[in-house]
């Protein structure tokens, strides 16, 4: 595999592409995407410029939660191919300098998993203690319910063993009992299995909820961190260079603990930043972004935040105030069908009302702020959603490759597809697809390639510090990224109208700003505040060079 400059920190320089194998490309015409199909699309992903793929769960599963209800951790769901198909895909990705991150749903299994089937079979079964059981449903009363739309309690009654079992998510997803060393060992064996095959890292799902203790919220408990440290230690010893990514939908100060002293997770999602980027653009005010980043603590040097705009879940509004949530609902989810749980089930382009300028602005923010960016499949071409499909399936529709049969996704009859295609006149596959956008140098796809290419060319974006400028015009968000002598000035107009802004760049006096996409020189920075004008939603990236 080609070597990066600092191999062990590869995740800091990554641009991650998130996809579900089911959604991407169907090679055998059964209407469901598979690994063979995905492998045929690796050239496209390489061309896009991403260098890591995050795969959503592809394991055998009853698929009652889109694969997050795993019934077998060490195999591939037959709909997606075989384990050999996965290995072939992995090799092909690595050959293209693309790393692969897989899902590790550690908190819970499907109720169809053999572990749970054994555990519920009798109270004396050796696996009984692999899950959390109770004769009453009154324990852990301080714990919130996450899926408020569907679940009334975190306890579910098991009629077979006549006891309640604990579940933080759906009732068909019993939580594993991490107080049991056998569970920790079993999960480590699962990780080893995939690491031996060659995966480059895991996204650990729902990590704050591993441990339960009476009188607490059962989130972020010290014992949970002990378990993470144990996994990390084992990985560092046996599989150096592999990466752990935390899914902890918490405030930055709480997530900070998951980095430990650089001995827990390598990366963690910055959940609260995401809705605030959307909020800032709608409010036309940089305040939400600045505020949340001001509250974001420093992390160890070997760690990195993961940032994203959209993903396979709803746009979560758990990490906002109720006032902010109401605002987001009103502005981005006027139709109640767009809302689910505490969030919004929409894709990037429809949320931006298909306004190319706003899509580009947000993508520009994603790629220029500190952290490893994640691009959700289809957002690079401006795919739409279908909020009437139920659950979050509206943002998990087939990838739109061309304007032909089934959007080029599958040769199956359309009725057989795992999900209907987006077919409306605005976002439908006839209008929005990879092939047509490949043909235009000015398409969103071409633009996205160009901006990723620019980011990849300058390590300051992935590893540099950030210093916010504080121009009096609050519609403008400006910051300087800096890594050694490499300096990049980023100026974003968050508003729908032209703006003038004066920047205090005295620290960079005599530097020449060079616009990074057109490589044009701008006037040298002098004694006076640096005046820039920006069109609606326009942004600039400047290299600051002292020549």
């Amino acid at each position: 595999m080609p070597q990066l400059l600092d191999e062990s920190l590869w995740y800091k320089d990554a641009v991650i592409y998130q996809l579900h194998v089911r959604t991407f490309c169907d090679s055998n015409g059964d209407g469901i995407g598979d690994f063979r199909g995905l492998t045929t699309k690796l050239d496209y992903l390489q061309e896009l410029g991403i260098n890591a793929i995050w795969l959503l769960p592809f394991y055998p599963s009853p698929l009652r939660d889109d694969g997050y209800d795993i019934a077998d951790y060490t195999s591939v769901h037959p709909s997606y191919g075989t384990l050999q198909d996965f290995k072939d895909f992995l090799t092909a990705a690595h050959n293209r300098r693309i790393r692969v991150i897989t899902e590790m749903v550690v908190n819970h299994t499907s109720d169809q998993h053999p572990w749970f089937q054994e555990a519920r079979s009798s109270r004396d079964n050796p696996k009984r203690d692999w899950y959390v059981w109770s004769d009453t449903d009154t324990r852990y009363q301080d714990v919130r319910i996450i899926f408020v739309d569907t679940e009334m309690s975190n306890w579910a009654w098991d009629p077979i063993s006549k006891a309640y079992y604990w579940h933080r998510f759906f009732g068909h997803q019993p939580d594993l009992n991490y107080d049991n060393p056998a569970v920790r060992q079993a999960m480590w064996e699962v990780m080893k299995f995939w690491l031996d095959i060659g995966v480059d890292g895991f996204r650990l799902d729902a990590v704050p909820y591993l441990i339960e203790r009476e009188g607490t919220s059962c989130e972020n408990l010290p014992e949970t961190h002990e378990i993470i440290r144990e996994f990390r230690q084992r990985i560092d010893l046996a599989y150096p260079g592999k990466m752990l990514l935390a899914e902890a939908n918490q405030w930055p100060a709480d997530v900070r603990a998951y980095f430990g002293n650089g001995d827990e997770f390598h990366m963690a999602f910055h959940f609260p930043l995401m809705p605030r980027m959307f909020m800032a653009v709608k409010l036309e005010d940089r305040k939400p972004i600045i505020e949340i980043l001001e509250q974001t603590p420093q992390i160890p040097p070997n760690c990195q935040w993961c940032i994203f705009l959209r993903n396979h879940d709803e746009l979560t509004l758990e990490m906002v105030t109720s006032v902010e949530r109401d605002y987001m609902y009103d502005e981005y989810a006027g139709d109640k069908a767009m809302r689910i749980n505490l969030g919004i089930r929409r894709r990037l382009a429809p949320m931006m009302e298909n306004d190319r300028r706003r899509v580009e602005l947000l993508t520009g923010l994603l790629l220029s702020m500190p952290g490893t960016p994640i691009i959700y499949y289809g957002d690079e071409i401006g795919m739409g959603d279908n909020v009437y499909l139920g659950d979050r399936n509206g943002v998990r529709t087939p990838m739109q490759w061309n304007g032909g049969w089934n959007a080029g996704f599958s040769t199956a009859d359309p009725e057989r597809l795992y999900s209907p295609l987006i077919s409306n006149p605005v976002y439908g596959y006839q209008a929005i697809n990879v092939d047509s956008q490949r043909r235009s140098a000015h398409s969103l796809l071409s633009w996205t390639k160009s901006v990723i290419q620019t980011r990849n060319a300058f390590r300051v974006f992935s590893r540099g510090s950030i210093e916010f400028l504080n121009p009096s015009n609050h519609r403008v968000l400006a910051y300087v990224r800096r890594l050694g002598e490499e300096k990049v000035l980023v100026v974003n107009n968050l508003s729908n109208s032209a703006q003038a802004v004066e920047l205090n760049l005295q620290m960079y006096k005599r530097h020449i700003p060079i616009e990074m996409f057109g490589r044009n020189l701008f006037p040298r920075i002098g004694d006076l505040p640096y005046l820039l004008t920006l069109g609606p939603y326009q942004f600039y990236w400047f290299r600051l060079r002292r020549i």
Partner: protein
Amino acid sequence: MAEESFLADDFLRQLMSVGEVDLLVGIPSHNHASTLLQALHCVEETLRQNFVRERAVILNVDGGSTDDTRKLFIESSERRDVAHKGLTSLRTIHRISVEYDRSPSQGLALHHIVAAADLLRARACAVVSPGTTNLTSNWVANLLRPVYREGLDFVAPLYARSRFQGLLARDLLYPMSRAVFGQRIRELYSDEWGFSGRLATQCLEKEVWQEEAMRARPEAWMAITAIGGGLKCGQYFLGPKPASPAGTSPDLVDAIRQTVGNLFWCMEINEPQWLNRSSSQPVPTFGPDHELSSDGVPASPEKIFDLFRSGVNELEPILASILAPETHAQIKAIALSDRLKFHFAAELWVKTLYEFAASYHHSVLNRDHLVQALVPLYRGRLYSFLLEHANSSPEVMETRSEMVCQEFERQKPYLVERWTTKH
């Protein structure tokens, strides 16, 4: 030759940075370092609690403070609500400051505020005074909300007062302005009020900003401009009006010069608006339209009477040039009456005021001197009021006040006659 703008470049630069807003709150100041932050935080709290989504700016217009008022305004940080991890209002609450002159002028301050409101296309604005010691976030919200949400163009405050507080407003300014301009706005002269961006734009276009009468009390002119422009006015009950801190309230002579002088001037420049208007209409009122408490005692009424009597004597030639002979004679007669049986009747009071207004209009003498000549007569009326109501209940006093208002309306044809005919 390019025309000079009264707006400084730096102020324009600040406005440019703020951009379009929904709400603007102006805080005129002059050496208010000790109380400014309280007002500022109160306004910020208003915006955070009531207008969390709106684009807002707080504008400090300063008349040459020498006590760091502006520095405090600019440099103090926004007080944060820690309940939500330090997150507060959705948007930046902009804060800008300008020194409009080296000496204070409410008119110049307001000129800058309405110019900012116009340029920033503010929908609702309020002016609050950092000198108001019991300003609350509710006050500010109640001035902004009827404009922003109910579509009013001018919102005057209503205050709860003790029986003998605010008599100049109750016995002169309110009944006379009500009779003249036809709208029942009780507090035309106040330190806090709200107005719309639309009204700000209309006001900005008027060529009155350099007038002396605008210097101290421009707010009534703004309300009268709204009435004249057919815009909607209302009033909002705010609560108890605090007594001005010692040494900060103008003495009676200044108060009358600033308010009555301004009222006469407003009548002068808005003559077509009111000459043919008869009767008055209530305006939308939020909360009780008045509230008198039974506390408060009149101060030194005997001294007031003495000042009335000596004033009538000393100013006899001046009063003779202002008043009709019979009015003058009646005043001289009551000035000679027994102190304990003294009575300055509402009918005479109204006639006196209307004759003063007409004489102001006809410039029978220096207008400032003319207005000052009203001071002893007001003292006489005040003394009579205090005698009459020493033991009256608030309800009785309010009934009598309404009768005074009706007397002003009844005699309005007399005002029109005196106004249009030089005697």
